[in-house]
């Protein structure tokens, strides 16, 4: 299997689907001849042409809304938000038009909205956000957040083939930092959790970039056997896998890079409190970004985003409980 970066794997998945299905097309700001702000669609314009790699006006509401219109008449649009932060401008079309369409009138909206998320590189308050929980709270939208290159490709293909609106949270800080073996050709990764590393004493539940932070923090933690569960999908949330890890490990640390209140991890904690209580040997512990905008300057940003040491400390305290 070829080795690819996380970013190359996303491009590869997108290219596979565009080659296989003429209904699939890409639209967004600067995705055409320029190849996208992060170069996910580099070379696509030359292969597929301007109609299928469509540079759009700077209008996020219309990017999502026109994708909805194209989807209901049979297309499979893949929209790129240049930064996930900008989806706030397309929130209404996604939450009110796309998300509620099937329930209201039985009309499917197969759109994929690619959301380059996350911080860690001094992007500041408007280029670092993790908006996944906004969409977990809105019925009718699936939310995916891959951590590995292999999953980034396979989950993107699953998203494009899904008949529903899907927010595909691709973590910017993983784009070129993470490499891995990626199967050739098209494959779908299931929208279920994955045990990133098995363990018995404690489980760290994470998704996206925090999977790697959790793996690093717990690789050798005083000899404890620590499991890392990579959620991969937030909607649908893999309750069985979460409860299975809790039953085996009995202690849980949940990590979000997002702001803490009502984050994905809060939902996981509530699920464990309701359905995993009998298996717990300690409080459910959460590590997340406090409820502040993501600051620009490196020491400030490091102070708010969960770091390896934060996870280590949380695990040590819980192991000693």
């Amino acid at each position: 299997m070829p080795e690819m970066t996380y970013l190359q794997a996303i491009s590869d998945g997108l290219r596979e689907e565009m080659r296989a299905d003429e209904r699939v097309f890409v639209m967004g700001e600067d995705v055409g001849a320029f190849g996208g702000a992060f170069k996910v669609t580099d070379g696509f314009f030359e292969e597929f042409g301007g109609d299928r790699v469509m540079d759009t006006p700077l209008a996020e509401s219309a990017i999502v809304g026109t994708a909805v219109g194209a989807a209901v008449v049979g297309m499979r649009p893949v929209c790129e938000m240049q930064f996930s932060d900008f989806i706030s401008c397309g929130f209404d079309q996604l939450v009110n038009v796309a998300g509620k369409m099937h329930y209201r009138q039985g009309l499917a909206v197969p759109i994929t909205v690619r959301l380059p998320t996350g911080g860690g590189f001094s992007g500041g308050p408007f280029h670092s956000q993790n908006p996944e929980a906004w969409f977990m709270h809105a019925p009718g939208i699936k939310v995916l957040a891959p951590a590995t290159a292999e999953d980034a490709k396979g989950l993107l293909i699953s998203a494009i083939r899904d008949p529903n609106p899907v927010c595909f949270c691709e973590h910017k800080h993983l784009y070129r930092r993470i490499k891995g073996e990626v199967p050739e050709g098209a494959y779908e990764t299931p929208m279920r959790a994955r045990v990133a590393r098995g363990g018995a004493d404690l489980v760290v539940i994470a998704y996206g970039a925090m999977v790697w932070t959790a793996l690093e923090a717990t690789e050798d933690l005083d000899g404890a056997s620590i499991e890392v569960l990579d959620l991969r999908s937030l909607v649908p949330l893999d309750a069985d896998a979460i409860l299975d890890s809790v039953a085996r490990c009995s202690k849980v640390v949940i990590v979000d890079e997002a702001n803490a209140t009502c984050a994905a991890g809060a939902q996981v904690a509530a699920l464990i409190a309701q359905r995993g209580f009998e298996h717990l040997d300690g409080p459910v512990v959460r590590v997340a970004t406090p409820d502040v905008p993501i600051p620009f300057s490196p020491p400030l940003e490091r102070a708010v985003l969960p770091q390896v040491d934060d996870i280590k400390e949380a695990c040590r305290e819980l192991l000693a409980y």
Partner: protein
Amino acid sequence: MATDTTLGTPATAIPVAGEHLTSDDRVALLRYMLLMRGIEERAMSLYKQGRVPGSFYDGFGQEAVSTGAAFAMGPADRLCVLHRDLAAHLVRGVEPARILGQYMGRAGGVTGGREGNVHFGDPRLGCVGMVSMLPDMMVVATGMAMAFRLRGEARCALTWVGDGATSRGDFHEAMNWAAVQRLPVIFVLENNQYAYSTPLDLQFAVDPVERARGYGFPGERVDGNDVEAMFEATRRARERALAGGPTLIEAVTMRMHGHAAHDDMRYVPHELIEKWRERDPIDRQEKRVRALGVDVDALRARVSAEIEQAAKSALAMDMPDPADASRGVFCEGEPEPLGDGHAPWSGFQEARDA
């Protein structure tokens, strides 16, 4: 240049139909308007009896706008219909009983009780229901047209939009996008003088029809209470769309009832209502149709009977099963494509026959 958007054509002027409408077409236009008004009046009485939950919104006095525009649309065209445009659903082929069932939240209503009042579109007839955030559907219709252009299909999309919604960003985003990509989309701006209680002079400083030119495509003001004028403007806009480009049609009309059933619209001057009552779109079309020698009283009786029968059917529909309330949030399996709608205009009939 200041423009008076409140003046329609005087009621006494009865322009002859253009070459594109047969006598049967002209009668059909009247019939759809009568059906719309009759269904909404029946629904209002059901509302007053407590059989319509929530509130009730109607398009009394605006029947020509949706009738005329929808009548110009082909079977494969796609429509996003607004809340004062009931006749568009009738033209496309939705049965009156399913509309009354919709108002009453019945299982047999168009959305099976998922949605209320006029928030519906029958996907099998090529219509997509509106959302309450206006004018979101302008952007959706633009996207439909974008897909038609990408696939090289000779079809267009149409949506209605109110005067209030011209103030929101989606109005601008849709107008600009449609112009940049030269899309086959028609925006019918239904200027009914008030957005809830807000009059035009608190809504915009430049009449929105003039904005079309600023974006780079034609804008046309039409007497929205003249159903044949509405048809003709939309027919021409459709030709323009198929040749590659959008049109903004401003249909000047008047909301003759409150925003919804609870609204006594005391904020509207009485004289304004009286002035517009003289321009009632049904009265005007009725005069034309009578001049053709058609027995309008018999037509009215047939429409009334059809509505009574529909009300009976709707009242006999079951309420939805509460066990279904959580189902269908996501699509599982293959998406059902939008179907084609009815296109009763003789022009399409001739095309089919040929």
